[in-house]
Each structure stands twice: as C-alpha cells, then as structure tokens.
C-alpha cells in the first residue's frame, strides 16, 4: 500500500512494513530531548519511577536554553537540577552556556538528527526537524520521562495534509512568510493532530534554513509534525554532519492525504501576524506605519545564519530607530561565529542593535527583552499570544527577518521593499 513519508518513517520505527493514519503504534526513538523548563518535571518523574539509568546516554539530549544564562535564583536552581542529572547520567549530548544554542538550532547543526529519525522533545517546536525528512514531535515532560526510560513512544499515526508550493517568490519573501501565510489560511487548529507535508517546486528551491522555519511553526497550526521529503538540499546539509546514516524516504505517488492544498508562492508578499494568534497573518503593507517599541530577531524559528543575513542585508549602512530597542539573538554559538566572520555582527552593532548570546529569552517572555504594558514588538519568533513576551497588555507582531529589520530601521511596521 502507498504511504506518506510520515507513515513510512513510523512504520520503520515500529518494525513493520506499513502503518496507516489513525493507528496507534509504539515507535522506537532515535532521540529524546528536553530543555531547562521541561526537563526538571521529566527528571522528577524519571526518579519517582525508580528507573536508574536512561535508555541510552548518547540519545537523551538536554539543552539549557530557555532561562539561561540563568535569569534568577529559581531558574538557576532548575537548571542546576538538569546539569546534575546530565552529569550523573553521563549524557554525551548536554549543552549549556558557552556550548549551548537554542535546541532546535543546534540539534540539526550538530548532526544529532538525521533524515528518517523518530524524535520526541519536551518542547512544542521539536517539529522543526521535519525539515530534514525526520518525524519529530513535541510532547510533555511525562511522555519525555517515559521515552528516556524505555526508548519508545506511543503515537497515533497522523493523517497528512499536503501543501504543494509552486511558483517563484518575490524579493524579501522567505520561509517565514510562506508558513505565516499558510497558518493564516488554515487557522491555528487547521492541521490539528495531522502531519503537514510541504512539497512542490518552491519547496525544492527553499534552503534548509527556510525549511526549518516552516516545519518549526507546524505546531502553530496544531500539527503533530511538519515534514519535507529529503532531497539534494537535505543531503548537502547533512554531509559531514550526521553521526548516523540518513534514511531518505519519500511519499509514494498514490499516498493518501486528508487534504491537498495548492499554493502559488508568487502571490505571497511579506507577512505579519497580528496579535494574539499566529493565524492573524496579513500583508506587511496593511500595517504600514504602526509604531513599535522593540524588534527581536532570533529564536528557534529564525535564529539561523540565513536569517541573520537577511536582517543584515536590510540594516547594512543604516541605524535602527532611536525609539526601537533592537535585539539580535544568534541561535547557536556556530551561527554567532559564522555571523561574526561574515561581518554581520558588526553591521548589527554599527546599526545600534544589541547582540546577545544564544537563548530563547524574550520569545516566551523569559528575559532579555520583556515588554511593558502598552508596548508593541515585531518579532521573528513563533507566538504572539496574550502576554507572550511580557505584560498581559503588550503586543507581539510576528514576521520574518526582512520585515523585522526594516521595521527596526523605520521605527514602524514596514514592508522592506518600501524602505
């Protein structure tokens, strides 16, 4: 029987020839991930179960990225619990300050996830790795604890919605604009429990960084996973990185989809999602002139090198508005270093933007850029819920790096083509 790429990966992970959407399966894990916010609860559960050791110290990955470098005493206590556990268990893939990056930036970067993998992470944006042609999904701390002990996870095989993206994008349009547009079309529960499979000519032309951005936000449409069939772009990215042999799988021509949606990317301009849902996407031009107090460029959604290149392209030779606090957060130490070698960090600092060590920080209202009541931010992050970046009466507008940088320069929401 013909299968989608998601079904094929899950069939392989439970040792079967085929599985079908709707079935419950127990899948073998290739990797289990948690961070400094979700690991403490998982560790509590792990220890309460009397498990002793994790199933594989090379495949349990812990990343302190949310509230580190620690923002207060309580966060320091929580991170210490994670640090102590990682050392006690002898985890080979534990990432902390100085070696750390945002989890969903560093796992692919270090080759910890390869095509064909099954990954769970106690972080909703674990779906990012679907960009590599892996099955990756977010879970809670208890699921993660069970995964750390057994090396397995129970899953309902999801139905798949296929998005065929064709056409040629305009200038200043990136993967972020594609995904905001798509979420705007289908809504924040438009792909509930489903796989979002991104395919078509425009996806083949999209860079790995753009694909990570798109799969990252599959959860914002309620999806279980986002996925892109691996191709030459994927193989080039994985070369010299992967610690395990990639398994390249693709959907069969006759695979069953719950829905097929055709999109002409030529018709998508730079997007902005208004508060307080990622589905409130409109063309950036519709909001032109709206004053902002802060711009954040970074996160697991848009903290990769290509994102910083886009922002720098706009900021080069310019200064950010004196009324806008502009915060640039490279997603990993490697991204930071690469940006430094390319002169991007210099461009940001000359433009009078702040550049931070990698952290999730302001994205979830943790630290490094919290908003006061009545303040408004444009951010390349993934959520604009009530109070997401600070005060319950603050506002977050989501956009890609081009729009964010243009907005920082102009002091108000700006379509970069009009700068």
């Amino acid at each position, binding site marked *: 029987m013909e299968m989608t790429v998601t079904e094929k990966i899950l069939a392989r992970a439970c040792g079967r020839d085929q599985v079908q959407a709707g079935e419950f399966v127990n899948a073998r894990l290739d990797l289990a991930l948690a961070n400094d916010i*979700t690991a403490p609860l998982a560790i509590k559960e792990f220890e309460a*179960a009397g498990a002793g*050791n994790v199933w594989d110290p090379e495949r349990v990955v812990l990343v302190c990225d949310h509230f580190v470098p620690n923002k207060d005493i309580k966060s320091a206590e929580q991170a210490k619990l994670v640090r102590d556990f990682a050392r006690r268990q002898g985890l080979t893939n534990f990432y902390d300050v100085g070696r750390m990056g945002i989890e969903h930036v560093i796992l692919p970067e270090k080759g910890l996830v390869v095509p064909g993998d099954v990954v769970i992470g106690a*972080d909703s944006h674990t779906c990012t790795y679907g960009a590599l042609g892996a099955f990756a999904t977010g879970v*809670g701390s208890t*699921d993660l604890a069970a995964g750390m002990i057994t090396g397995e996870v129970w899953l309902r095989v999801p139905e798949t919605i296929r998005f065929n993206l064709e056409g040629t994008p305009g200038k200043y349009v990136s993967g972020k604009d594609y995904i905001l547009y798509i979420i705007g079309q289908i809504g924040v529960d438009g792909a*509930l429990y489903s796989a979002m499979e991104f395919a078509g000519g425009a996806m083949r032309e999209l860079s790995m960084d753009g694909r990570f951005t798109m799969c990252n936000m599959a959860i914002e449409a309620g999806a279980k996973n986002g996925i892109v069939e691996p191709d030459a772009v994927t193989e080039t990215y994985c070369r010299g990185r992967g610690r395990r042999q990639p398994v390249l799988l693709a959907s069969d021509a006759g695979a069953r989809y719950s829905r097929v949606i055709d999109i002409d990317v030529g018709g998508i301009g730079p997007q902005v999602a208004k508060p307080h849902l990622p589905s409130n996407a409109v063309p950036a031009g519709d909001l032109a002139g709206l004053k902002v107090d802060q711009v954040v460029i970074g996160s697991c959604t848009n903290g990769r090198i290509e994102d910083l290149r886009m922002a720098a392209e706009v900021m080069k030779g310019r200064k950010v508005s004196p009324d806008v606090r502009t915060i640039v957060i490279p997603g990993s130490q490697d991204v930071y270093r690469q940006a430094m070698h390319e002169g991007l960090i210099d461009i940001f600092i000359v433009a009078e933007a702040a550049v931070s060590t990698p952290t999730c920080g302001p994205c979830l209202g943790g630290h490094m850029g919290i908003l006061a009541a009545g303040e408004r931010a444009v951010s390349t992050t993934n959520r604009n819920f009530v*109070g997401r970046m600070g005060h319950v009466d603050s506002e977050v507008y989501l956009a890609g790096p081009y729009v964010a940088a243009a907005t920082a320069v102009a002091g108000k929401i700006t379509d970069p083509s009009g700068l």
Partner: protein
Amino acid sequence: MIFEGTVFKFGRDVDTDVIIPARYLNTTDSQELAGHVMEDIDPGFVGKLKAGDIIVAEENFGCGSSREQAPVAIKAAGVSCVVAASFARIFYRNAINIGLPIMVCPEAAREAESGDLLRVDLDRGEVTNLTKQKVYQADRFPGFMQEIVAAGGLMEKVKEKINQRPGPV
C-alpha cells in the same frame, strides 16, 4: 468517575501561555503554579474557583507550548475536569499522562455558560448540564488511551516495564 461542579467558561484557542505564563515556569512546585493558573486570561480565576469546579472551553484548548505545567497547574488548583470542543494535541496527551480528567464534547462545550452546574461521567462518556437540564454524549477515549487512564497514568505503565527488566535497575 463522576464529577459535579460549577462551570468556568472560556472561548476557543486558550493557549498554555495564558493557562500558566512562562514567567512562572522557574518552578515545578504544583501548588505554586496553581496560584497563577489562568491569570492572564481571568485574573480573578483562582480566587473564584472552588475545589471540584469544571473548566469548559471551545475549540483547541491548550494550544501552544508543550509545558506540562499547564495541566499540572489546573489539576493542582482543584479543577476536577476540563470539557472542551477540542484539545490541542500536546495538552491532550499531557492531561492523560498526569491524570487530569478531560472530555471532548463539542455540543456541551458550546452550550455551557459560566455558573452552570455540570456533571461529567467519565466512564459513560456523558456530560449533563444540570442547570440547562440537558444530557450530551461525549467522545470516548480510544482503547489505547483508556489503558493508560486505567493504569493510573503513563508512568504506571512504564513502571511495569521497569519491573520486567532483567537484573538490577
């Protein structure tokens, strides 16, 4: 299991950031988390809530982050059950895994109003709005999930596996 309580009604797309804002995620203490539950959507919620009360919401309850602190805070605050038209998938899993009773019942969710008295019969999959004198049939959990609920949560099932491991653990 049967629960009876007063309804606190919410709309659609209630996200985990308003259920428990990230600024409180620097602790795993369930009572401390419970003190802030729903704070950013209904600041007076904790003060009004009585043990056993029921949250009713429209579509996509618990969307957003994977934070298990969301169902943990709801449970620790004394909410007996959450009835919604639909749940976001990670919240749904988390609720089952930690033993927070939930029920998918679109019609009951749409028609209930704050202050109504609701009875939820988990075993029969039935929701009764005692105020409106109306009975609704809810979706049953798939068999696979009923096993987890019956075992007392996911970790109880995992413990069975640990006990089957050869040698010392």
